[in-house]
């Protein structure tokens, strides 16, 4: 029961990944791509937690911790650069 629900959750996460990647490829302006980059990092945190659940190692959660702490740095610097025009 719970395994089937987890597989369904993985499929939905993959759907979100594909949609955000499509926005990254298509995005008409550079800031749209920055938004897609942000969403992709958040989806990656979810994917890492799912991988930690599948393999049963709690050490993988530290990687998600570093992601959650540092992924916004690149987004903020890119946004501050793109403020002054494209």
């Amino acid at each position: 029961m719970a395994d089937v629900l987890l597989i369904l959750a993985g499929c939905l996460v993959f759907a979100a990944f594909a949609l955000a990647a499509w926005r990254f490829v298509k995005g008409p302006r550079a800031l749209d791509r920055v938004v897609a980059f942000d969403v992709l990092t958040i989806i990656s945190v979810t994917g890492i937690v799912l991988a930690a659940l599948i393999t049963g190692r709690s050490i993988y959660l530290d990687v998600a911790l570093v992601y959650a702490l540092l992924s916004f740095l690149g987004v903020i610097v890119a946004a501050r650069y793109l403020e002054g025009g494209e």
Partner: protein
Amino acid sequence: MMLSQIAMALGFSLILLGLYGALTNRDIIRMIVSFTIASTGVNVVLVSVGYLPGRSAPILDEAVPVAEAATRITDPVPQALVLTAIVIGLGVTALMLAYAYRLFRARGSLDISDFTELKW
């Protein structure tokens, strides 16, 4: 296909793509971006060399006790090498960017066809 073979194919593809970009671009910043991609490819190849199928990460905790460690962990030596290589890659990238900035301040351009002193 196995996991390590997928990763190795991806790593070599990234190295070739990075070399192609570094050789065909004219903008210096774009050449440094291509170098970053090639460096990531080298790291992927090195980690995939040390992967053993069916084994777990070489960090000992309650999931992998010390007594069974020799049969359940992957090879930790390539991971230690790659850990050093990533940090050195950051240093090389920072040095190249600093040179690019000095070059722009001195000459007002980043196009490599504007620098002809070393041509003959």
